[in-house]
């Protein structure tokens, strides 16, 4: 099966129902995308599939063949992603950091679709869990990235 990840093509030979998360982490060695729950509960595994924030832990790899997948590893190649990262840094968002790959990807997806999000847009899109409670800093950073 052929996957397009961060603009590069990868051939993977794996059971078709393997979650994308584990293809990224184990087959391709891209460990920036995190495993938190495996059950679409936390969002640590969020990647972009054709621009949509997608929980890769419950996404069978066969369902994303032929799509464009973007992971945190390529975040700096994306102009919106860059803005998000800069806002994350200036708001000092991460604590333990474990959820933050997924948070940054979710924010990037939001700002690609709604460059000037309302508070409701932000609340609706930024639903990933953070056990360290960085939620207020996340929302502030999203607002700042939208202004940048």
């Amino acid at each position, binding site marked *: 099966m052929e996957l397009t990840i961060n603009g590069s093509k990868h051939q993977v030979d794996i059971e078709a129902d393997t979650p994308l998360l584990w293809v990224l982490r184990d087959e391709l060695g891209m460990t920036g995308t995190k495993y938190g729950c495996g059950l679409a509960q936390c969002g640590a595994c969020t990647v972009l599939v054709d621009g949509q924030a997608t929980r890769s832990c419950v996404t069978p790899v066969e369902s994303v063949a032929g799509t464009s997948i973007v992971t945190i590893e390529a*975040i700096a190649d994306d102009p919106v992603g860059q803005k998000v990262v800069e806002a994350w840094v200036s708001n000092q968002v991460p604590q*333990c950091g474990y959820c933050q790959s997924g948070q940054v990807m979710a924010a990037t997806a939001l700002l690609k679709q709604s460059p000037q999000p309302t508070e409701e847009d932000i609340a609706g899109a930024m639903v990933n869990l953070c056990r360290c409670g960085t939620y207020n800093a*996340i929302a502030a950073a999203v607002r700042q990235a939208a202004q940048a």
Partner: protein
Amino acid sequence: MNEMTTTELGATTLPADGPLNLSRRGFLGAAAGALILGVNLPAGRARAQAAVPAIVPGTRVSAFLEIRPDSTVLFRSAFIEGGQGIFTAMAQIVGEELDVDPTHFVIECAPPGPDYLLTGGGRFTGGSMSVRMSYDAMRKLGASGRHMLLQAAATQLNVPISELTTEPGRVVHAASGQARPYGEIAEAAAALPVPTDVVLRKISDFRWIGKSVPRLDVRDKSTGKINYSIDQKVDGMLLAAVQHSPRLGGEPGALANEAEVKAMPGVHSIHRLPGAVAVLADSWWRARRAVETLQVTWSEPAAGTAHAMPADFSSEAHMEKLKAISEEGVAFETVGDAAAALGSAATVIEATYDAPYLVHGQLEPPSALVRWNEDGTLEMWIPNQAPDMFQGDAAKVAGIAPEKVIVHSQILGGFFGRHFLYPASNPYPQAILLSKAAGRPVKLIWSREEEFLRDTLRPMAAARFRAGLDASGLPVALSAVTIGEGPVGRLFGRQPDKVDGSTVEGIAGKVYAIPNRRVGQFHVDDPAMIGFWRSVGHSMNDFFYETFFDEMADAGKQDPFELRLSLLAESPRHRTLLQAVVDLSWGWKRGPFTADDGTVRARGIAMASPFATEVATIAEVSLRDGEIVVHDVWVAIDPGSIVNPAVIDSQVASAVALGLSSALLEQVVYVGGVPQARNYDGYPILPPERMPRVHVRIVESGAMPMGGIGEPGLPGVPPAVANAVAVLTGQRVRSLPMSKTVFKGLNG
């Protein structure tokens, strides 16, 4: 090797030939192999060195610091970073004295060893202790390093040391206009003795301590570049997944479909472990799928198995048992005569409170990467909060000497007390056995479901209170008994006639001037595996006490803020703090009142004294569809003195989130000996839409000793919320979490 490189800082007696700093590792750019220097010593010399007194933790510059040719500093931290900002704090403290900008530090976690035993003679990252236990030592360490650099520069420039000074990252000779970057003189400095006495910077001259220096790891954590334990890899490793016995103590019996599972894609081998089965495979997903396909018959725990989980264990029934106990228990704190004062009080009130089991729920599931090396050493990449303890335990599991266990402590994807050495709760013993059996490196990851099955729990407990009020409604007597078991006693040994302080902290040691008090504890074995959870006993005891305090206030027709203030008449530090949180929230208003958005709201207040820090908290709440909405939380926090205000702000926000999560949502429920929730779907944690605004005021009273920061923001949150809810609804929440209760506003 370490014994050979002993030098002592601040020791009054030194070996006759003066302190030696044989390790070039410290200041050398290339660290590889540097420690081998020790074995090149003549035998006689080595013996002489062996007689040098034991290493004084936190004194050997070379063990901590390596200045690289580009003048950046590699620093080995005794404490482990897990989001609390300790690496940045270390860079600030050491950099201040060494005269290096904290942003020029690269920090890694130090290996096990005597140099790093900075937590009361041991080493752990917890108890909100890291900064306060090491602050003085780390300042001296940085100052010693700076002095060695000055000496080296004095020699090179051939000028008296008194004519030299430093600027960040370099030594400067003002008279001649010459300068030497640290990186150029580091090697020469490393050859010098560590000074025995150094002068520390004046506090008024601090540039970085006390400032909001940006955290060092934020960019890497915003771009997915930080590797946690779960991300580590070594050549040739197999991935492992386990299925645990549903109840602790059960052992794997027959595997009904072993051949079928063995034939699944990528499967390398199937293993029986103590209390678990494991599959090794070429990817973790394949290992997990295979191990969960295995049909295992689990034995009943053998008689006498320690902490075997009973088949009929119900957390609800256990709580009923705790609450039904009417004993007075062993006294822990006695002031005046509570029994007599209760007997003669005008009014007596009583109430029983309880709080449930909690999991840590850190977002990174536990893992362990283990490799046996050809030289007989065992290497482990693991999450942990206490490297030396893990090293010792791993050595026992592996059957080798502790010094043969190499521990690479990883940055933690959250911890909150999760990564202490707890029996049956850590994956590395399994990984050691699996790696040995397979003859290959193994990375074992516990699925979230296995984690929620084997995490140690914040214990459940009940607390019974009685208070006596005088005719004017002021409290004159308070008697409290906590019922349950604490983690300190469980893990470090309990003496039956003594109270485990972790069961009463937050109820004992309160600052209010109530003349007659008794705090007791009645021990009941907890059938579950229990451990430390952010703020430990305070996480529930402050809820019990501070909520009951408002019950006393209500019974005596006192305003809860005014009553607290009056009972703190003799304690200016606490009065100041209480006033600070009230000022921060634009004045005390208890409510109910109608906010600008039309919602009816109320406020609650609470105080806490955890980990040598003082905290006052106010929460503002309303109701929406019978559910509590927390709008704002104001926290005034006084740790005495501080290192990084921005880190304090974020640690308080984090503690508020976790405290609120526990107050509103969290409980581990056991039925038939098994936990009912195995993932976040059944164990909800605070989601973003329930996060309140958090306002923090830091009060630097200068009180000594310095207090902690990581945990103290938490304990005041549940009682502040519960007290606000009582105002708003007239309903006293005495049992957590609040999601068990459907609330009605005062008007129905």
